């Protein structure tokens, strides 16, 4: 049997360092919000021309061009980012559909000498110089609304889960009250969420990874997953408390963690197997989402074994003092 509970100080230290680093990173660098939250326009273009224009050419097209109505004020700061071999991603302020069409025309005119004899959609067999793969323009109001909704959803999930756990463990209120199991699960999941957010804060700073709606979905999923994992371990404690009445609480908890550790690892392994295969072979648009889930599954398993159960013992000892 592994002495997990007895060595709890080591695990608490590891986790405290990770959480502290994450919080520091979040405070210093923060997260990079995507247009879902700020409002803005995102346009992904694929060039079929050889060679594809370089970033400076594109940038000049947007900013220097005086003949069109696409003005600098209207677009704000234009960010251009190459994607793959032929793709290009543009970001700027939210714009109207008219301006969107103007930009498309501008691109067509500049990179197709035959324009406008081959117009965008009317001639299906002509290879177009430019294909618009993705276009999103989100008004700032919708972004703010989403931010508000998200905060609410996360708070709701946390509260509902504490309530549910307190209820599910109502029959084991000795030596630790059932709502403390709920708090323990929430501390563990807070630990998970903060570390995952911290990782994405670092990724945002150094790899430009943005936080979008999918990331929030991932966080909420991690909530569910982490609690699920913690509950399984707690469930065994609940059962063993009945079976080994009169034994030391610390030993019972340690035994429970040991009895469930194989299951915890196997479940993580199978979940991670799927997540890794989606990460490696799935579409690029959910890659960051899956990465968040992978981090979450990893720290979620860790916290359910090394944080959530040892916390119960700490509380029990504090109470006895």
């Amino acid at each position: 049997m592994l002495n997990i509970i007895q060595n709890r100080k080591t695990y608490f230290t590891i986790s405290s360092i990770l959480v502290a680093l994450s919080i520091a990173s979040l405070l210093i660098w923060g997260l990079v919000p995507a247009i879902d939250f700020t409002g803005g326009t995102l346009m992904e273009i694929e060039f079929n021309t050889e060679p594809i224009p370089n970033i400076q050419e594109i940038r000049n097209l947007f900013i220097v061009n005086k003949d069109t109505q696409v003005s600098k004020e209207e677009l704000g700061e234009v960010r251009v980012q190459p994607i793959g071999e032929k793709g290009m991603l543009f970001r700027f302020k939210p714009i109207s559909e008219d301006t969107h069409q103007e930009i498309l025309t501008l691109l067509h005119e500049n990179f197709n000498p035959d324009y406008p004899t081959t117009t965008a959609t009317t001639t299906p067999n002509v290879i177009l110089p430019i294909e618009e793969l993705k276009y999103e323009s989100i008004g700032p109001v919708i972004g703010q609304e989403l931010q508000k909704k998200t905060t609410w959803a996360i708070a709701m999930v946390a509260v509902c889960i504490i309530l549910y756990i307190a209820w599910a463990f109502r029959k084991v209120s000795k030596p630790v009250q059932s709502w403390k199991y709920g708090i323990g699960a929430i501390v563990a999941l807070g630990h998970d969420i903060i570390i995952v957010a911290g990782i994405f804060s670092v990724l945002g700073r150094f790899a430009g990874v943005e936080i979008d709606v999918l990331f929030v979905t991932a966080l909420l999923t991690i909530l569910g997953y982490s609690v699920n994992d913690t509950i399984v371990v707690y469930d065994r404690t609940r059962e063993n408390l009945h079976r080994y009445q009169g034994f030391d609480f610390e030993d019972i908890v340690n035994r429970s963690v040991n009895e469930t550790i194989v299951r915890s690892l196997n479940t993580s392994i199978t979940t991670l197997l799927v997540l890794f295969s989606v990460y490696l072979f799935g579409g690029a648009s959910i890659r960051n989402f899956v990465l968040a889930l992978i981090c979450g599954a990893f720290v979620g398993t860790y916290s359910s074994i090394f944080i959530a159960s040892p916390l119960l013992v700490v509380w029990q000892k504090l109470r006895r003092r």
Partner: protein
Amino acid sequence: MPNYSSQKAYTFKMGPRQKLWGAIFLIIILAFLAGLVDWPKGPEPVIGGIRREIKIHLGLDLQGGTHLVYQADVADIPAKDQGSAVEGVRDVIERRVNVFGVSEPIVQTAKVGEVWRVIVELPGVTDVGEAIQMIGETPLLEFKEYDPNAQTELTSEQRYEMESYNTDAKKRAEEILQAIKKEPARFSEIAQEKSEDPVSKEKGGELGWFARGQMVPEFEEAVFEGLEVGEVTQALIQTDFGYHIIKKNDERSIATGSFEVEGQEPQELGGNREVNASHILIRTKSVNDYIKFEDQWKYTGLTGKQLETSRVEFGQNTGAAEVSLLFNDEGKDLFAKITEQNVGNQVGIFLDGFPVSLPTVQEKIPNGKARITGTFNLTEAKELAMRLNAGALPVPINLVSQQNIGPSLGKISVEKSFLAGIIGILLIALFMIIYYRLPGLLAVLALGVYGLLVLALFKLIPVTLTLAGVAGFILSIGMAVDANVLIFERMKEELRAGKPLDLAIHEGFKRAWTSIRDGNISTLITCFILYWFGTSMIRGFGLTLGLGIIVSMFSAILITKTFLKVFERVDIGWLWGVKRNENTRL
């Protein structure tokens, strides 16, 4: 096989083995039915005479298409009518979109706080510009009555502001006039710089050739009577628009005749002269800048929503083109009420916020027939009638968000996620069989049935699968595996403790169940909140994960258990991954 029809008569009692075979039979039937639904070219059941096509509905991110969010401007509408007005917008847009020929469009309304939105999803539509035009060009038709509470006179503040603005304008105009008197050659240069007439400004103030009857009287008097060619006015000319400084460039004779505008009475042209002039305009403000004509009219509830048909007709006396309107029953009653209350008053017909016709009501009109007479020609009347028929909006809408995914990007996503899913499932199957042996193999079979059932549910409900939805489904497979892992670990414990196989299976299930239940309910809570709070993509994720979890509980408890029980007499330790040791007891 037991004879089921005789069960009641002989109070036939099933033994445990019969129950087991019954369960197996049930699982096979379920799997078969689910398989039929899942099969790409499966049957299309005829329900109540309606052929219903069963297929996976792919979200916009997977098949390409357009997602538009419109905000409805309901500020002028009383709170209690807002909901139905926005529903009206929805109906009209849906009709429009159907004309457009989009397969499976989704048009729905959403209220966020105090804001009403209409969300339009057009799968397969990649020419957004055209789609937006089709939806947005739909005219806004309203019948309004005079608002007795509307502001008709300026407040003292507004009057003060207007007067001081106009005094300032006059001062500026005088300064420009003095500058031009000094240097008449710089007229066009100064016009480009200072004129407040946006149309002529760029051309150095030049207005082109015009004859009498085309400009306001004060302006014409100055040009035709007061100025010689090449001369500039020595004093400011004041009109309703503001102060003008005018230069007469040229003059020529034209043949006398009549000047005809389509749809209007022929007009006699004054004199036989035509002039070319330039001007510099400094605008002044008038009462109309503060009190808008449109603001003096109020909402009656009668809008394009209640319109049944509209047609082009010709006025009996004038012969001019008119657009006649026929309201539906609801509109008929409303129109009768409005006309009854406004006998002797005007009722305004507003199109896209502008008055097109202001008829005075002579008597109550009970038959729901109205006509729009205005200054439009036949082509315009036809176009208006056509657009009204396609649906007039009851409230104005603004596009606040749009998303468009190209078809090739969607296709790549589908192929990649499909491949990734298959690889992930194969890896899980491999892991389960290697680690848990016979139970692992049975779990893989059970998971196969689970997959069939979930996909069938997705098709039947139907769930719109987005990329996030696919991720939810894949994650739910992980949860389903977890339930099996929990059961097997428990079972192994019981076996190690020396319990006989059948008892170990039974105990394993019983003890794993509380974990499975509590763990999954907490995830279900998360799914529920995601579905409740989320936008389309997050909702899809919550729904697929939630459905997956519910089916996974069913699968673990019924399907895996039944499969295991079939083998409960095959007591070979190696197959179950346990070294049997009769002496180990807890």
